[in-house]
């Protein structure tokens, strides 16, 4: 007589040790790699304390970062929230690098460690390695070295030029950080290691050719004014990447200041993909951990109690409050990502007539994992929502669209979860994830080179929504300080080209010195 033996569970209590973490990982790995066919960077798991998690949190989740007061501000806020119990710490933190670094908190229970390994070490890791936006923009191999370089470089600047001047440049650069990304990829090597090496080379070259005599060489007669189009072309205008423009063309910046702008810009660029794929990235990780945890439970690797613990935290993570619940703060990226992905799985397995009509390519294809992997690789939040938010889900979540028209006293319910509304709701929600719409479209359009070197920046106003005036004034001051001459910001309606408003700022002369 033989009895099919279920394997003994990996753990029973909530305690864990290193050998258990190893066993958990080794049990999950074949499920993730062979059954789900995920493709990942090698994993490195690091156990850290709650305090270290707070530290990591406060520098945009990176293990090493240059010093700046705003990270201190982050830290005190996080710490406050944590102490008051208003917010728990994330159970995990994962870094898009090769090897992929996963932070696990020592306070987690064994079940939570299992969940975190499934979520971060396999889910996020797969997404980082395969999603096209990341492939295009980030250099997983070089990022840690580059941050190391940035940290060292900025520390050196502080030694040479003083903490305050460096802080000023960083403050100004941070204010323009969102305007420091190239939104459209060009062919360009993403090799951050080489970046660091190149700067060292530039510095060495400058040192070599430095000759004070050149300062005294008389300059020739002034050239005639260049025609404006040629001038703009020479400056690479219009330019949406303001930090890039300043770095290349700022007339009053010293080379170390340019290099700091460059550092901030490259880091902003590194994080740019994360901002475009929040729902997908979290959805992918959540879907992965759900599959893995369920499999572990089915096969007896984790106990019923542990599975219940997992379910309760999973449910919290994917909870989406309704608009009138008082807790509503927009869509929860975990809920949205996981919701759509689970729905895709349903469409692949048991499609309804409606699904076949809406998703002819994937309905009934059976192999949900293949479909999902394709989606994880080739979409970002905007395209993901606009392609895969199904009528089924719109009904389930009872989505509706509100239109708030300028000049009207009342809001209008523009679409609800019915036949007429599906597409409109889907399009509208997708637009909320369009990065070009989340952020104002601001470009450097011209410089008055012959005259007072005034820098002209334009905000293309969409749907009449102007910039927040208070912040705009402050950022503009920073921009003027960096540019060294007057700066004019025009808000121009993107359709009628009518100028709605303009701000200007004079540089603070004491600033640069």
């Amino acid at each position: 007589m033989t009895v099919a033996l279920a394997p003994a569970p990996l753990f029973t209590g909530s305690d864990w040790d290193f050998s258990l973490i190893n066993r958990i990982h080794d049990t999950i790995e074949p499920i993730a790699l062979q059954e789900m066919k995920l493709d990942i960077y090698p994993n490195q798991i690091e156990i850290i304390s709650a305090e270290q998690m707070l530290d990591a949190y406060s520098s945009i989740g990176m293990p090493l970062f240059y010093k700046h007061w705003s990270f201190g501000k982050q830290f005190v806020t996080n710490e406050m929230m944590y102490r008051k119990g208003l917010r728990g710490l994330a159970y995990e933190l994962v870094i898009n690098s090769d090897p992929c670094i996963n932070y696990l908190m020592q306070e987690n229970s064994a079940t939570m460690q299992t969940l975190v390994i499934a979520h971060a070490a396999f889910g996020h890791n797969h997404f980082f390695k395969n999603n096209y936006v990341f492939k295009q923009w980030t250099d997983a191999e070089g990022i840690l070295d580059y941050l190391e370089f940035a940290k060292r470089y900025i520390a050196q600047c502080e030694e040479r030029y003083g903490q305050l001047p460096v802080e000023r440049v960083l403050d100004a650069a941070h204010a323009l950080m969102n305007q420091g990304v190239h939104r459209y990829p060009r062919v360009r090597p993403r090799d951050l290691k080489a970046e660091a090496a190149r700067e060292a080379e530039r510095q060495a070259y400058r040192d070599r050719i430095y000759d004070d005599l050149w300062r005294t060489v008389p300059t020739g007669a002034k050239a005639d004014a260049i025609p404006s189009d040629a001038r703009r072309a020479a400056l690479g205008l219009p330019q949406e990447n303001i930090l890039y423009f300043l770095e290349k063309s700022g007339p009053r910046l010293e080379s170390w200041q340019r290099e700091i702008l460059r550092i901030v810009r490259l880091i902003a660029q590194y994080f740019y993909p994360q901002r475009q794929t929040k729902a997908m990235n979290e959805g992918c990780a959540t879907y992965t951990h759900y599959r893995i945890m369920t499999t572990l439970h089915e096969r007896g690797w984790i106990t019923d109690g542990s599975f219940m613990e997992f379910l309760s935290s999973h449910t919290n993570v994917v909870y989406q409050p309704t608009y009138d619940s008082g807790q509503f703060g927009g869509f929860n990226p975990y809920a949205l990502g996981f919701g759509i992905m689970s729905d895709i799985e349903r469409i692949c397995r048991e499609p309804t007539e409606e699904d076949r009509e809406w998703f002819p390519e994937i309905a009934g294809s059976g192999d949900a994992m293949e479909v999902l992997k394709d989606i994880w690789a080739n979409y970002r939040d905007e395209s993901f929502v606009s392609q895969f938010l199904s009528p089924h889900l719109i009904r389930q979540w009872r989505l509706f669209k509100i239109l708030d028209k300028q000049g009207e006293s009342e809001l209008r319910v523009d679409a609800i979860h019915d036949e007429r509304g599906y597409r409109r709701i889907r399009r509208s929600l997708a637009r909320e994830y369009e990065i070009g719409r989340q952020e104002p479209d601001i470009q450097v359009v011209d410089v008055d080179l012959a005259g007072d070197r005034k820098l002209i920046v334009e905000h293309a106003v969409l749907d009449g929504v102007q910039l927040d005036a208070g912040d705009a004034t402050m950022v503009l001051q920073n921009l003027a300080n960096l540019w060294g001459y007057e700066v004019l910001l025009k808000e121009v309606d993107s359709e009628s080209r009518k100028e709605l408003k303009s701000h200007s700022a004079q540089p603070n002369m004491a600033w640069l010195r």
Partner: protein
Amino acid sequence: MHIVDRRLNPGGKSLVNRQRFLRRARAYVQQAVRDSLKDRSIKDLDKEGQISIQRDVIHEPTLHRAAQGGSRERVFPGNHDYMEGDKIKRPDGGAGAGSKAGQGEGNDDFQFALSREEFLDLFLDDLELPDLAKRRLIGGAVDGIRRAGYSTAGNPSNLSVPRTMQKAMSRRLALRRPKGADLARIEEEIALIEARTPPLPDDATRLEALREERSTVIRRRNLIAYIDPVDLRYRRFETVPKPVAQAVMFCLMDVSGSMTEHMKDLAKRFFALLHLFLSRCYEHVEVVFIHHTDRAAEVDEQTFFYSTVTGGTLVSSALDKLIEVVQERFRPDDWNIYVAQASDGDTMQSDNGRVVSLMQQEILPFSQYFAYLEVGREEFADIESIGTTTGLWQAYAPVSDANRNFVMRKVHHRREIYPVFRELFQRKGVAERSS
């Protein structure tokens, strides 16, 4: 997969950033710290604490769209009964229908917690307490332990292995103890010769010489030990006097009918400062509250500041009580005793003789420092400064002249507290340095 335990890495990576943040917001944080002191009790004064500062000081601006104006559309979950085309009244204050409720914290203030150290730094930084005074104020001594080289005798647990091995090695070198390698070389040669067939002619003599050499080597090795008792070295420790870390502070307050709320407030501020100052110098500070009318009693802090007892004034009663408590619980040999007395100086003439003698004979000898603070009405500041003096002031004045550890000051206004406090301690320090 690779696991790394980072828990032992130093935490506090954000410490520098945190300090930079505090430095940036310094003026505001300092103001907030001072404000927050108003609501604290003396004992809690230097506890870590929550403060909030205006958000715009440390605001990091970005270019972003305004929250209002223009046309927008948004998708929400959880529709109950809206139909397409329904009109909804615009919610107050915002253009979007999104509710910001549930975000908890207000947006105007930036709240965070300061550690005890940070709190004190910011608070005392403003005060510029003289370091000289601190040193002077630390009296007495207890024994501490520190390293003091090596000795040849000691407890096995204090054996210094590196030092012992070093000694053993130099002894072995000096006495030329044969090495293991020497022995091995001889053994090897013997084995080689013994194994040779047929033997060479002079093998026998060679063998004999080698065997002799071998026994010498073995003998020497046995004779000269690898580690000898004379090599042993122990870490030595010696006791050194260290400053004591305990102090007691007596708060004596007149609560007779003539003391107004304003006067009590002045007194309280002074006590608070003194307490804070002592807590910085000592690991452990006790506070004893004594209030008096014509009778004195030891009370808790709450009663001390808020009780409504009233009556005549008999300063000697408080001093009696002070002496009694000291005798009962605080042996002057073990404790640094500080006394701060606050009164409006309105006392019975007949009592003054006794007060002065108690001071001279009993209290000042065991006190580290005695501060008398005469609190006056705010509105009388100008009149009194002309030179009216109270009975108690007149009685204390000669005592103060005769004793360096007795000081007296008059305050009328809150803003005078810090300077007076500073002056009290600074003067002592300066005087001591010049003497």
